C-alpha cells in the first residue's frame, strides 16, 4: 500500500522546487520590460518610431535579439537545471514505489530468544 507516501513525496518535491526557484529567479529578474515601439504615451508629443517615414523605403535592421539579453532558454545552465529538476522529480516519484522495506531479521539471537514470526507489511 503506497497511499500515504504521497505526502512525503510532496514535501521532497517542494524542497527541490523551492531550491530551484530561489536560485533561478535572479535570471528572470534581470530581463528588461518589453515596450511596444508603436504605442505613443500620453506624455509624449513626438511620433512613434513605427510611423516615422512611412513613405520612405524602410530599412529594417535585423536584430539578433529582441531584448538586451538573450532569452533564458539559450543559456546552457537553464537546460542543465531543467534536466536536473526533471530527473529529481521522476526519481522522487519512482523511488517510493520501488524501494523495499528493510530486510527481515532472520537471526533470533538478537531478539532475546523470542521466536521470530511473520515479517510483513508495505514494501515486503
Amino acid at each position: 500500500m503506497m497511499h500515504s507516501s504521497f505526502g512525503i513525496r510532496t514535501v521532497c518535491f517542494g524542497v527541490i522546487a523551492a531550491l530551484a526557484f530561489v536560485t533561478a529567479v535572479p535570471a528572470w529578474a534581470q530581463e528588461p520590460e518589453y515596450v511596444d515601439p508603436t504605442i505613443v504615451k500620453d506624455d509624449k508629443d513626438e511620433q512613434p518610431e513605427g510611423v516615422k517615414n512611412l513613405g520612405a523605403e524602410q530599412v529594417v535592421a535585423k536584430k539578433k535579439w529582441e531584448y538586451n539579453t538573450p532569452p533564458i532558454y539559450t543559456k546552457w545552465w537553464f537546460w542543465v537545471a531543467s534536466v536536473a529538476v526533471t530527473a529529481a522529480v521522476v526519481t522522487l516519484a519512482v523511488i517510493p514505489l520501488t524501494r523495499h522495506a528493510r530486510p527481515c531479521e532472520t537471526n533470533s539471537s538478537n531478539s532475546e530468544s523470542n521466536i521470530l514470526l511473520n515479517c510483513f507489511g508495505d514494501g515486503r
Partner: protein
Amino acid sequence: MTSLQRQACLIGLTGALVLSTSGCDPYTYFNVHVAIDPAMDTDSQVIKDARTRRQIDACVVYVFADGQQIEEGKNLKTRNGIAEACQAPNTPLNVGILDYSTTRSSGKLKFTVAMKNLDSDVIAQGSTQEAAVNPGSVYPGTLEVLATPCGGSKPACEAISRP
C-alpha cells in the same frame, strides 16, 4: 545570472538529488511481541483457562490504523513460513515476535491478535496500545500483545472480521 549563482544553483540541485535518493525513507517499522496470559498455563489452577489454551489452534494478527482495519488477518507463522506459531494443544505462552512495516505518513496503529480454536471461534484475544507512525524510524521498544480468554469475567473480545 552570474557564474557564482550558476554554481550555487547546480550545487543546490545536486544536493537535492542526493537527499532525495538517500533520505525520505517512507517506512515506519514495528516490533510486536505476542504472548499468552500466564494464567492460561496448562498447569494453571484455573482449569477453564488452561483448557482454553489447549484449544488454541491458530493465531491471527490484525492491524488497525485509527480504528480502521488495514490488513487482512494473517496467521502467525515462524519467519521461515514452515510452522504455525499456534497449534493445539501446545501453543507456547511466549508465542513470538513479529515485524511490521507501513508507508503511512501519520496516524496510530494498533495490533490485535485473535486466538482461535479448531472451529475458528475466537477464544482468546489481546491488543497492543496504539503506536504513532513516524516515517523513517523504528517504533521505539516492542509493542506487547497479551492474549487473555474471551468471555467470563474478562472483557468480551472485540469484533474483528474473519480472514
